């Protein structure tokens, strides 16, 4: 290559961390999504692995249970050749009473380049940026944000609609307990999409107006309107011992579950779900398996999008 401009485009991606999509501009998001396309291609190679991050060490700090997000991150890291260490709170010094701050400082003393963190408290990733030099990636903090999930959702939508401007996205279900919603609404609005939230009133958060999305209580109306219907998992574990928010799962399915009859009645919308799906609750089993569902694409795309993020945040020298 003859000069630098061949390999470094003008777009100045200057983010050091990924804490949430709130801090990312429309151009930042579009740039990540565009770069992710090329990482997606690596996954189809005979040797689906590149040595780009082989000098980086990444710790996955999971204070909350997670199978797919952690797997997806770990796979993305290994596909890029990084060294990966996993830390899960259930089998670690947290049980011995170590504070988050001490844990992160200990890990940081081991010369870690990046930290992927999931924690039940909102703002933990923000807190970590002040404690360590490493780049921080938020893999979900309480009900705050889950930016990589939203990015992979938008990437999957772009595979159907390359320009999301004016596209209609419905997010259906457990809005109140969902960080996926917040990140998705923030991201989708920046890309010019229209978002409607739909679910039982008990699962709508008090701050719903501040999200800047429309709200509907009528599933049929929403499905007739939208291009993409994203169902969310009913997070039974988060409802805890408090008052049940829905009378029964069966009634929820009757009111807000997407069923085959909906696919027939409204032939245009595509079904998404961040997983894991409660079959027969948010989605009828046959809907999950139908050709209108892109749920498995979301999983594959998740690895590619996370690779792109790891790559873009791994640059730069620290002083």
């Amino acid at each position, binding site marked *: *290559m003859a000069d630098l401009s061949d390999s470094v485009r003008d777009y100045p991606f200057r983010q050091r961390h990924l804490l949430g999509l709130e801090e990312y501009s429309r151009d930042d998001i579009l740039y990540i999504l565009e770069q992710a396309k090329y990482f997606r291609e690596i996954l189809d190679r005979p040797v689906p692995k590149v040595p780009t991050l082989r000098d980086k060490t990444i710790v996955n700090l999971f204070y909350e249970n997670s199978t797919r997000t952690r797997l997806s991150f770990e796979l993305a890291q290994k596909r890029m050749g990084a060294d990966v260490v996993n830390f899960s709170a259930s089998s670690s010094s947290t049980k011995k009473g170590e504070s988050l701050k001490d844990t992160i400082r200990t890990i940081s003393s081991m010369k870690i380049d990046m930290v992927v963190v999931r924690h039940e408290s909102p703002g933990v990733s923000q807190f970590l940026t002040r404690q360590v030099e490493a780049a921080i990636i938020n893999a979900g903090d309480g009900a705050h944000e889950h930016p990589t999930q939203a990015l992979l959702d938008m990437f999957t939508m772009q595979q159907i609609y390359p320009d999301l401007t004016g596209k209609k996205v419905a997010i259906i279900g457990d809005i109140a307990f969902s960080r996926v919603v917040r990140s998705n609404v923030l991201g989708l609005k920046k890309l010019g999409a229209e978002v409607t939230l739909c679910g039982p009133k008990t699962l709508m958060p008090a701050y719903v107006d501040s999200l800047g999305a429309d709200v509907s209580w009528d599933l049929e109306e929403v499905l007739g309107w939208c291009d993409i219907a994203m169902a969310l998992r009913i997070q039974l574990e988060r409802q805890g011992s408090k008052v049940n928010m829905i009378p029964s799962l069966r009634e929820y399915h009757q009111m807000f579950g997407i069923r085959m009859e909906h696919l027939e009645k409204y032939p245009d919308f595509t079904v998404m779900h961040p997983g894991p799906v409660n079959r027969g609750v948010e989605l009828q089993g046959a809907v999950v398996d139908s050709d209108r569902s892109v749920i498995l694409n979301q999983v594959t795309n998740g690895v590619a999008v996370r690779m792109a993020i790891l790559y873009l945040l791994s640059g730069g020298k620290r002083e």
Partner: protein
Amino acid sequence: MKTSQIMSAEDLNRTFTRFAHQFLEPYDDPASPAIIGMQTRGVHIGKRILQVIRKEYQAEPDFGVLDVTFYRDDFRSRLKMPEVKITDIPFDLFERDVILVDDVLYTGRTVRAAMDALMDYGRPGSIRFCCMIDRGHRELPVSADYIGMTVPTHQDEEIMVKVKELDGEDAVYLVDRGGTRKTGKSEKNGGADG
């Protein structure tokens, strides 16, 4: 800063034609070798050579596009990560004779990266390398099999290969950054690595 043209559109066309014939010389079947253009200008140079082969031999050799960003060894010293471009090799590399095409051969680091990348796609029978300009100053033990023009350069100088598809013209320029000669070393490290 002084810019002088060292190849015209006509020169480039003649070279494309020469490359086409050189590529196919060892083969009975003109579709035997596969051509892989390296992002960005190498892709367009490769496509031009392919056009000549189509016209003169009525053959359609396999053509691929390679981006070596993932395999580079220099981006760690930069503040911003280089942009990744598409890689598309729509055929099986196993036991194929592959000809890599790039615009400028300089330190040799990009070719090294390209060879690493190709090996991850399969096990080619052979890899040969074609560049439009060989400007010297190798830092690795590699050389080109097909060379458009050998241009002895100073390290402060820059070679600019222009192609119509991207730059609106076909030409090669030698740019002399005389004013920066004293700091030429760092310029070299940050910039060209062909």
